[in-house]
């Protein structure tokens, strides 16, 4: 009974030692939520710093974010960098606002208002998680495809104007050389079980040969008049680079991705995934508290401090997103 407020009409302070003696002027639960947030903030900082470390290692070849995240719902084939993630950011900020309004209503013991605002917060959180799933879907599916060389470099295809060209636009279909192992033909281990790309390396190379207008774009970042872009090779260089191709890469997974550095996709999945997991847990916790509000638990307690505590967590999730947004999409 010392540590938590559980019973109705309980005037006890959460710490022992009588009225008005509270370390740091905060109740036990609230202070612990703050220090949990400190540790979680350091965890996220560790991830983001590790991302920075890897990016600094490959500073000249890192993918350019506005070439990777270009999708927007119902706009097919239109390159819309930033808009979607900006929308997600607004959704999350807005759900933070409804959360803080719920806390504010809680201070005035207005049960209905707290419930309505909590509900809106939950809806906002769900929309955000859903948006993230959609973003992941596009990222995993990919758009153009690329090839990886023996040395691990990634080669993308462009036309004369530097516009990206998808594999399916030029690759030729050769007589089948590889066969995907299905379960019916499997041994106890499957050597070639990895999902096969639509085209083989030979098919891409053959298609490249019959399309003289195509060029290869490397991962190398060049800066002209303050604008960053990726280096495009001449036709002769392109042909020689393509002869060292080893894999066809379509979309992204944890091993390789069509956007560039392998670590880019790894960090994207890990950090946005970890953040999405936080949002998901936040939604679950919010739902629990929402039902407690409806049941009148805090009304009986004459204190809506629990709403304030989950509010702290929810704002923290928003806070982390502000940094993830900057680091992954802007810089």
């Amino acid at each position, binding site marked *: 009974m010392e540590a938590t407020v559980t019973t109705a009409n309980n005037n006890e302070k959460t710490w022992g030692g009588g009225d008005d003696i509270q370390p740091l002027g*905060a109740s036990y639960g609230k202070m612990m939520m703050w220090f949990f947030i400190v540790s979680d*903030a350091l965890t996220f900082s560790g991830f983001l*710093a590790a991302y920075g470390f890897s990016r600094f*290692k490959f500073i000249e070849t890192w993918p350019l974010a506005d070439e990777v995240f270009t999708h927007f719902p119902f706009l097919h084939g239109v390159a819309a960098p930033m808009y979607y993630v900006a929308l997600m950011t607004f959704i999350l*900020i807005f759900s933070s606002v409804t959360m803080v*309004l719920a806390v504010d209503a809680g201070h005035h013991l207005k049960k209905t208002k707290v419930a309505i605002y909590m509900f809106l917060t939950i809806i906002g959180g769900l929309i955000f998680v859903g948006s993230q799933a959609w973003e992941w879907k596009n990222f995993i599916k990919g758009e153009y495809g690329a090839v990886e060389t023996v040395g691990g470099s990634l080669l993308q295809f462009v036309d004369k104007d530097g516009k990206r060209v998808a594999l399916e636009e030029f690759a030729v279909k050769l007589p089948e050389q590889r066969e995907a192992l299905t379960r019916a033909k499997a041994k106890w281990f499957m050597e070639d079980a990895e999902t096969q790309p639509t085209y083989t390396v030979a098919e891409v190379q053959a298609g490249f040969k019959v399309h003289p207008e195509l060029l290869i774009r490397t991962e190398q970042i060049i800066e002209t008049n303050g604008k960053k872009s990726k280096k495009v090779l001449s036709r002769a260089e392109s042909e020689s680079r393509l002869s060292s191709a080893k894999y066809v890469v379509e979309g992204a997974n944890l091993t390789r991705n069509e956007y560039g550095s*392998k670590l880019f996709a790894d960090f994207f999945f890990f950090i946005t995934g970890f953040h999405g997991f936080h949002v998901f847990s936040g939604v679950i916790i919010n739902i629990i508290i929402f039902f407690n509000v409806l049941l009148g638990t805090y009304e009986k307690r004459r204190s809506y401090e629990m709403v304030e505590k989950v509010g702290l967590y929810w704002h923290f999730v928003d*806070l982390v997103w*502000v940094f993830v*947004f900057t680091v992954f999409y802007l810089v």
Partner: protein
Amino acid sequence: MSHEHVSNTKRIWFVFALLSVVTTVEVILGIYKPAVLEGNHFVGLNLLNWIFYILTVFKAYYIVWAFMHMEGEKSSLRWSVVSPVIFLVLYLLFILLTEGHYIYGVFKDSTIKWNF
């Protein structure tokens, strides 16, 4: 409750407007990427990225101070939460980014090619 709570609704909407405006500015800069800003560097970072980081910290300040209501807490709590994070993060960033830059140099000046 130890302190009186006045309604902060006005301030909440003000902060929301502020955060929205800042985010909009970031998105516009992120789409257009003005060459003047991206081409000029200050202490190893281009001006555009400086602006992004400053605006991010600005937003973080308002989220913590207004939404998480840090401004209403005692200064002892404020310091014991904020200072460890700031100092440890700066330290971590310093170490990791320096090392990352060093490894970049190793790859650049040698024939090693190791994409990991």
